């Protein structure tokens, strides 16, 4: 059953949620929209294209202390980081919600990541269906859709004079404000998106591993980490122990397979030294290794990497090119 909430209802509801929860919502920072814990409901932006960074940072923060070890009076104590409060992520688009669902595969598989698991179970997701697609969007080719309710607890769809509210899970139902009227009208149709031949390429990826295509497309790659850091599904990290005056902290930070030191091993050997090898790793992880391990393609089609790549390495174009390479191979 769909419910209806006016924009004022939604704002009041967010105000209520803010009393008991950390509310992470899209806000304006400089010229950009980005997800941040809010202090007041007035800051929330309702009308936005995909945010600068995805909301994955709530579950896998750019930097966090996993635990610290303290020495006090000869006693050594391990202090794990605690998740203090329940949280709500408000306004995430279906693609971003799918990104979080995909991150669950590696992080919740046993042995699961304690901090991730804790944050995940204590966070509710309130999605916002996309009424408009951007030219870089291709979620329908990556197992999602602009109105996909499958990875959120509640899905809002903007209608005339307000929002159509769909409680997807029990967790979502419990969060709903009381007294919302039933909505009997039609739910507006989602925007149409162009298709990318994902399936064909995923099944051919093993054969493409040694193709010269990788070196060609990597020629212009700068090997910055932008694509990985804006991606809702890239989850690689680095860890380091920080020691200072009787206290040691184990810190985890984002890291990317594109950066020069990523695959360097002790002793100095680096299995991925060329630009092509490094760029191939990005696409193979998304289109080959992740599907082999977890059955899903590790891309949600949010288009952030397309939007932000300084040299226009467009994953949709890469997939199309790979399809051509495959066809040329099988043809000859």
């Amino acid at each position, binding site marked *: 059953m769909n419910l209806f909430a006016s924009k004022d209802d939604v704002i009041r509801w967010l105000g209520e949620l803010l009393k008991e929860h950390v509310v992470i919502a899209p806000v304006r920072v400089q010229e950009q929209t980005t997800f941040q814990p809010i202090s007041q409901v007035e800051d929330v932006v309702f009308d936005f294209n995909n945010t600068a960074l995805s909301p994955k940072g709530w579950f896998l923060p750019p930097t966090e202390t996993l635990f610290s070890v303290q020495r006090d009076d000869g006693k050594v104590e391990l202090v794990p980081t605690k998740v203090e409060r329940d949280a709500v992520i408000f306004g995430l688009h279906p693609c971003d919600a799918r990104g979080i669902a995909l991150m669950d595969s590696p992080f919740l598989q046993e042995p699961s990541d304690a901090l991730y698991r804790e944050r995940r179970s204590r966070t509710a997701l309130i999605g916002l269906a996309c009424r408009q697609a951007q030219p*870089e969007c291709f979620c329908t080719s990556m197992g999602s859709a602009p109105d996909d309710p499958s990875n959120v607890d509640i899905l809002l769809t903007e209608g005339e004079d307000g929002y159509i509210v769909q409680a997807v899970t029990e967790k979502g139902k419990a969060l709903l404000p009381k007294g919302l009227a039933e909505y009997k009208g039609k739910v507006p149709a989602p925007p149409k998106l162009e298709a990318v031949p994902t399936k064909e390429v995923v099944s051919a990826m093993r054969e493409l591993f040694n193709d010269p295509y990788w070196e060609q497309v990597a020629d212009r790659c700068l090997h*910055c980490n*932008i694509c990985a850091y804006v991606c809702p599904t890239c989850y690689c990290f680095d860890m380091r122990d920080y020691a200072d005056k009787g206290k040691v902290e184990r810190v985890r930070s984002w890291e990317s397979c594109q950066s020069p030191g990523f695959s360097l091993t002790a002793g100095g050997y680096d299995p991925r030294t060329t630009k092509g090898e490094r760029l191939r790793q990005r696409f193979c992880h998304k289109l080959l290794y992740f599907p082999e391990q977890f059955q899903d393609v590790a891309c949600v089609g949010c288009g952030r990497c*397309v939007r932000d790549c300084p040299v226009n390495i*467009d994953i949709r174009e890469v997939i199309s090119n790979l399809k051509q390479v495959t066809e040329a191979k099988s043809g000859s």
Partner: protein
Amino acid sequence: MDKELIQQIRDKARNLLKEGTVEGVIGYERASDDLTSRPLFAYSPSDTERLIFDETCAHNLVKYLLDKKGKKIAVVVKPCDSRAINLLLNEGQIERDNVFIIGVGCPGMVETNWNHKSETLQAKCRTCQLFKPVVYDFLAGGEIERQAEEETYSDITEEEAKSVATRREFWLEQFGRCIRCYACRQVCPGCYCPVCFAERLDPLWVGIRIAPEENDMWQTIRSFHLAGRCIGCNECERVCPVDIPLSLLNRKLEKDVKELFAFQAGLDPEEAPPFATFKKEEVMEFEK
């Protein structure tokens, strides 16, 4: 788009590849948005048909010469980019004989993002006084005449007039947004250390924390390593995904280097850079 200019670039590139003068030509092609541009690596004469040049060709392609050391390569350069060639020659990173420079006069580049092209010139282009590359083998499209504002560093002097505490707050806020994607480093033609100080593990100069204090260390040293070396292409600021105003750092150093040492990077491939030389008789402020 200047069709005549593009034809000249294509013809030159095609001939260079046909004659075997170079192995590859680095230029620009249309991006996947059909509006802006991106780097193109042309290895066969037929590839050269994709070459273009217009007001969206912001990338400084000189950076890629560092990936192609020892190979004969032709590269399309704008006037500001050409200063990077002098920088790399000056620092012994590339050999003049290996590079064929296809220079283009520059009408100024506009602000672009993927699928967005504005009418506004980039800030660096509004005050740029170079209309012709400082070094080239072939000049496509001939010389360009245009008027540019004078570089006054007004935004820098405005910052300088603020209190130290205000500036500290401002920069920590800016650096606080940094996600350490290192795009600023990766795009910079002056950043080519085999192992960047940010990647050294022992001693660990910059930690892995993506947090204001460590970002501050990264950005301070990154920009200072480019003191007297930054050629002002402003690519770092353009690619920054979180819009940190890096030109305020680079141009501050450029201004001070001009004032203190009367030096500008990339204008002369022979002139000693400011930190590789000195004058015995000079007196610095702290000595007074």
